[in-house]
């Protein structure tokens, strides 16, 4: 699948935003979120990331001005559900941000935080399911897809919260531990995901797609319909060399998991340089998650390519 930058930005940015929203909401529920400016900056950052992501996602729409219609088909469409969940999450999160901005202290913030956390999980789950539900792409059509989305959202969100807390001088060991655990879970999930897709050669063949060749035969394209690539080939025929992909996988695993885990570990046990360490971890993870998301698209093979030279999908 063609890795569109708008969609990479959307999923990584809003993923981190929802992760941050989730953790700060939980922290607030647990009474551990430092108050004052820090709380507001955190939720503002979360909402900003979410908004940048969502705006970015509309950039790949042909008619963004009609986007309102996208909330109508929540009964069947994960994309519609995601839209509904995203907008629904804005309500409690926005209110929470407003309350924290004006510094009011009311009991309702706990409820808003709870709703925000639920909304964040629901939205990211829907995002994952947009991809996870597509049977045309075996690399996406896995149970682990939404899990990885959730886990990476959680890990990147936790990292951001850790960065903020340390920048505000409110660093605490608990956030370090949460970040560490999130990163490990995400890393395990992602590695498991890669193992899973590598083990799946694809169940569909050119013979099935064309009905030609019979049992054990072969079907090879002679002439494509048109000389130059068409929409389907550009959008769904993107190919990344296996060697290139595995190098990128290693790099993204190092940047997204190895470096942050080490950095956070140090930060947990040597809180002195926490701010710098968390920042390093966050920057590495940011690059890593963008690469991971690029690979998520680039490595995805679409069944339609059976008509354009793929032998299995």
């Amino acid at each position, binding site marked *: 699948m063609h890795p569109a930058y708008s969609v990479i930005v959307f999923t990584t940015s809003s993923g981190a935003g929802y992760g941050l929203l989730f953790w700060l909401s939980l922290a607030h529920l647990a009474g551990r979120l430092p108050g004052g400016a820090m709380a507001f900056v955190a939720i503002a950052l979360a909402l900003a990331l979410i908004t940048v992501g969502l705006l970015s996602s509309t950039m790949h729409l042909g008619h963004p001005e009609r986007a309102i219609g996208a909330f*109508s088909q929540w*009964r069947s469409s994960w994309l519609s559900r995601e839209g509904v969940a995203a907008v629904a999450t804005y309500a409690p999160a926005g209110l929470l941000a407003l309350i924290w901005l004006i510094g009011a202290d009311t009991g309702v913030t706990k409820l808003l935080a709870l709703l925000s956390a639920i909304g964040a999980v629901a939205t990211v789950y829907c995002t994952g399911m947009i991809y996870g539900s597509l049977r045309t792409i075996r690399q996406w059509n896995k149970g682990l897809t939404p899990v990885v989305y959730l886990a990476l959202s959680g890990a990147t969100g936790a990292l951001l919260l850790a960065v903020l807390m340390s920048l505000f001088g409110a660093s605490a060991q608990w956030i370090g531990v949460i970040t560490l655990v999130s990163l490990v879970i995400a890393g395990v999930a992602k590695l498991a995901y890669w193992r899973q897709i590598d083990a799946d050669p694809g169940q569909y063949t050119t013979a099935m797609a064309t009905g030609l060749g019979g049992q054990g035969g072969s079907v090879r394209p*002679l002439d494509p*319909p*048109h*000389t*130059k690539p068409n929409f389907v080939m550009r959008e769904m025929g993107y190919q990344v060399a296996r060697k290139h992909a595995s190098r990128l996988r290693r790099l993204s695993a190092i940047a997204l998991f190895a470096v942050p885990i080490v950095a956070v570990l140090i930060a947990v046990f040597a809180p002195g340089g926490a701010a710098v360490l968390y920042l390093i971890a966050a920057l590495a993870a940011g690059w890593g998650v963008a690469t991971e998301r690029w690979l998520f698209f680039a490595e995805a093979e679409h069944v339609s390519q059976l008509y354009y030279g793929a032998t299995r999908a």
Partner: protein
Amino acid sequence: MAQTKPIVETSPKVSDEVRQTTCYMCACRCGIDVHLRDGKVSYIEGNRNHPVNKGVICGKGASGIMQHYSPARLRAPMKRVGPRGSGQFEEISWDEALELATEWLGKVRKTDPKRLAFFTGRDQSQSLTGLWAMKYGTPNFAAHGGFCSVNMAAGGLYTFGGAFWEFGDPDWDYTKYFMLFGVAEDHASNPIKKGIGKIKKRGAKFVSVNPVRTGYNAVADEWIGIRPGTDALFVGALIHELFRMQQIDLDYLIRYTNSPWLVIQDPGAEDHGLFARNDDGDPLVWSNEAGGFGSGKISDLSASLTGTRTLPDGRTARTVFELMAERYLGDEYSPEAVEERTGVPATQIRKIAAELAHVAFEEEVIIQREWTDAWGRKHDKLIGRPISMHAMRGISAHSNGFQTCRMIHILQILLGSIDCPGGFRYKPPYPKQTPPNLLPHGASGDIKPEMPLGGPHLGFPHGPHHLLLDEEGGPNRLDKGFSWDAPMSAHGLMHMVINNAAEKDPYGIDVLFMYMANMAWNSSMNTPGTIDALTKTDENGDYVIPKIIYSDAYYSETVPFADLILPDTTYLERYDCISLLDRPISEPEILADSIRYPVVEPDRDVRGFQTVLIDLGARLGLPGFVDDAGAPLYPGGYPDYMVNHERKPGVGPLAGFRGKDGTEYGVGDKNPDQLKRYIENGSFWEQRFDPEHAYFRHANRGYLDWGIKKGIRLTPDATIFQLYSEPVQRFRLAAEGHGDRQPPDRARERIQKYFDPLPFWYEPMEGAMVDTSKFALHAITQRPMHMYHSWGSQNAWLRQITAQNRLYIHTSVGEQIGAKDDDWVWLSSHQGRVKCQVKLMDGVNPHTVWTWNAIGKRRGAWGLSDDAPESNQGFLLNHLISELLPAGGGGYRYSNSDPITGQAAWFDLRVSIEKADGDEKTEPFFEPVGTGMQEPSPTKVAFGAEFRRKAQ
């Protein structure tokens, strides 16, 4: 959630108006319904009532809109102001353009009309262009048939008075076995597609004989991936087997062919190999009934097919049948003998022969229908041998194509399958006489200043006495047509014109006048050489071809090389006449012709070429174009001519709706409302035959008489099939030293060898002359079906389908040279080399490489950008094909053509292949031609958006 159902307008208005005309996206000439919206062409579909396409349309026809609105269209007359090829023109008025052309042409006509060469490309108005050239008085006229179809036309017409090409069709309704030789997507495109669909559905067997398995061949039930140029060996082996198995239609041979005719056997005599004749000139047969000699023209059913007879003068004679059997039963035509050369296993040849025999004789088709033969014998039924065959370019484009084509016809005739139910059927006005009684004109004595030629240029010589020679016995035509180089060149040799003119061989010219022929690119052999010829200068720096006038509708590669451009219209803006005098659109059961008329008016300063030609004819004062007072005869241009011209009394360009009230056809008075009647009738006219006249028309009394009445036959005599061709033998006799017209010594051996009155196989010229161990591969081309004859690279839709060609090679060849798909290779011939990209495939003869022709374009032409795939990766094989053969004995270089007909031997090409490195661009890579006055092409097309906005 209940969904609100969107409202879909299921009955939108399709168009404001439908106008019916004739397609011109290729040579097929289907009827089309052109829908107009707001005065714009909005949709084109097939005309359901039309005899050719019966409603269907092809990929080209349905893309006509993009041709009509092509950015490569020329917009106004232009005069060249920069050097040739620079594309530097200035727009001029029509008056100025026509005055200039009149001045140039008038001067030549006053001095030596021969110094005008007038050649047309995919012209569908040859009866007009030929008439014009005849009245002008130059011998140098032809259309592009010499590099296209002449082997098929001549091979067929000399043999059975019809031809494959577009002059006949398999009997799709009854045939049970269809054999297709070579690429055939070029002519009769929709009729053949319809036919293939029909027979496949009916369960008839379809055998394709073609080195390449694409297009029609892909749906064949059996594909024979033959080696190019060896078809006559394969067909000879089939004939061998039929003779061996005694599976031939003897009755048919006796009735309709010259197989019982007696051939004089007197080697060394001046009439050796000619037919023994009686005092009336009738060929002799041995009549068993009469117990003596009889006439071969009366279909004597007791005539003997065998036996050596002693003629009244004491010499011996043998029947054609015996000579033929001897030829094909010879060991050289046994399946085993041909299997290696052809690549067709002997077992497969045997199987096909057995199937042919089985279908012809065990599965005959009988239609209970009374008819009377040419000799008055009544028949109560029609017996059909349901074997049909078709061939075109694949046979035609070899230098052994004439003989190969004749041999295929002999196979058909031995099976009794010409114009019978299930066989190959004539399209009227065919059959003609054999040999055809149309003779060529333009010998030296016939050329005088300001005098018309004595008759039409192109015809069918019956022997050396019909050649068009100068006083010294050399060629009198610039293309050397009807000379000893190509004696039976019934369509001329357009492929030789430019290079001969530049070499002044046989002589130089003053004006080259061409229409619709892309000679500076894909229509020439040796394209770089042709470009050099067009720009060659003499010692004074003047062009050796001093003046070039060119008419085309589009900015092709040839336009920049002309001095004066006469811009033509698109096919939807013009009048045309698809005449029975020219290349008719008849179907086997329908006599038909058709017109084009402007369904939209041009939005540019362009004029239909035919109207311009008629105007020029009047300005030059050509007889037939002005009246006695010198006033134009057809001031209304082409439509005026179409209605009011008469070739002979009552016979005009259009056969339908003649007579004052439009009720007559064929022969009848002029009808001023004729065009109106055509337009009302969908721009065509058709006349269905009496069912009694539907078959055996070469010898069908009712049909022959009807044909005379309607002006499409010249004699009431039957057409007798010439298995043995006497005109061919006459040339051979001349080469042996007989007669007063003698070939030059260098040509004797060649003529003796190739002018065999019985078809035989010989190695195609190029293969026989180059080192085939070096050039081990054959290279051939075909046009993609969606582009055949369509000028399609300027078409925004068609070029998306094929914007670049690759060289298709057999998987094993790819393995040998270590090439994978899209790798670059050098392809070399004795002429030059081309760099191109390969695609590996299984469905090609392993000794053959091929590509889609004419996809490669030159930068600057056709409104394409300089980075278009057509000019950067696309390539032409033309660069590898020499217009001349390598020098033979004596150093003379013959044209790379069939030695008999002069047909360009495109498919004789021999090549070698090797992997190439370097940058990914084709070579030779030509400098762009200048783009002249052309406006830049748009970067986006959203055709139809305006109609939707309007609807909303």
